[in-house]
């Protein structure tokens, strides 16, 4: 039986196919940083605690250090770079800058991804819901208040997120990629 210690992995990274060999126990995070050179995905801990490695994987926001590269074979992966042309993400980025929600910046890509995930599911969160939404993301610099302010400011302007949010509320785990893309579930469904 073909159990492999390494294998060729193809992912659709920000809508572009990317192929490289990965070790069997290699994380998607290492694959993205070291093979695909997608260094916008950060490694703050490598074991699920900090959230700097967040990516949109197969339609869900996850910590890429908790996913095997092999598990991503054939799947779509979006890093923050790939979401740059999304209106909600662009608004979040502007708001982080305006509110001074960035100091050293190491947590920022992951923080933006967590905020994006939250606002897609819950367009008008309370401050406490914002805290819960970024609970898996650590920031050693800002003390979080400015990050929460930045997210809250975008949360007010919900018009452009409502459609995506509706469909994210009840993701259908058995839907095909095509169905999900149609439902707006995968905002940037390629093609």
């Amino acid at each position, binding site marked *: *039986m073909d159990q*492999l*210690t390494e294998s060729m992995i193809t992912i659709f990274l920000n809508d572009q196919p990317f192929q490289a060999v990965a070790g069997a*126990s290699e994380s998607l995070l290492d694959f993205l940083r070291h093979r695909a050179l997608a260094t916008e995905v950060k490694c703050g801990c490598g074991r699920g605690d900090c959230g700097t490695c967040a990516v949109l994987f197969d339609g869900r926001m*996850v910590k890429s250090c*908790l*996913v*095997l590269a092999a598990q991503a074979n054939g799947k779509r992966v979006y890093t923050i770079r790939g979401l740059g042309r999304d209106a909600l993400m662009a608004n979040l980025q502007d708001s982080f800058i305006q509110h001074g929600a960035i100091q050293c910046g190491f947590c920022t890509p992951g923080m933006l991804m967590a905020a994006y995930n939250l606002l897609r599911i819950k367009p008008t969160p309370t401050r406490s819901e914002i805290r819960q939404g970024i609970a898996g993301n650590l920031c050693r610099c800002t003390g979080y208040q400015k990050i929460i302010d930045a997210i809250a400011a975008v949360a007010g302007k919900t018009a452009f997120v409502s459609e995506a949010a509706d469909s994210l509320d*009840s993701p259908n785990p058995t839907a095909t990629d095509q169905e999900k893309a149609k439902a707006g579930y995968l905002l940037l469904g390629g093609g």
Partner: protein
Amino acid sequence: MNAISYYRPRNLVEALKVIHDYAGRAKVIAGGTNVLPDIQAGKVKDCVLVDVTGLDELSGIRMEGDMVFLGSLTLISDLAASRTIREQANVLWQACQVFGDPLVRNRATIGGNLAYASPAADTAVPLLLLETTLIAESLAKGRREIPLTQFFRGPGETVLAPEELVTSLFFHSTSSYQGAYIKFGLRQAMVISVANCGVLLKGTDTFQAARVGFGALAPVPLRATQTEAFLCGQVPDESVFAKAAAIAQSELHPISDLRGSREYRVMLADALFKQAMRKALA
């Protein structure tokens, strides 16, 4: 040598065969939220990772009559967003809201949470209160049902044979009960419980039925059956809660660890139980 290899079966039959063929060396991986940190820490090595995430048939929430069926690969985030779970198994729904963080919930599966058998696992106490039965499958033993009360053996240990896969679980609706799940961690969110408590109650003037469970207060998550027996027929008031909490203490075996001392956990059990009773009846 630390040789890890990887195999991704396409369906259940193939998965069971692979696990059988690599008897002893196969290591199931689902969401990987326990397995990847364990690979990092060197606790998982020399194995064939059998990735079950391609087995779509093991995912989903389904109701049949008053029974709720969950595939073992069902994500915590799908349970947390499910109307069926909120209405039919509210105590489990509450636990899924406070499980890890949103990004972990998007990967963590319910089967992985049970199979990892952490005494603090957040779905364990709610599923014990729901009197859940697991279905395990393997080529050698076929398909068997395991009541969750008999599933946990100790920290990280279950009655599963190495080649058994948890495929689904089921329980009766508890829509006519009032329940509460309270988790105490060292931070607001995202952390493993220092201790947790869940209750499921029926009847408002007097208790017709009471189910009480504790996590991280003994080597395995457990039901406090003597506390439950005491509560039946009692009226819901603070003096009853205090007496019940004292009985519960005798059923628990807390340990000291890096998240809290034994004495601290004794006090926590008392406080969490009373909080859960108040919240369930509120």
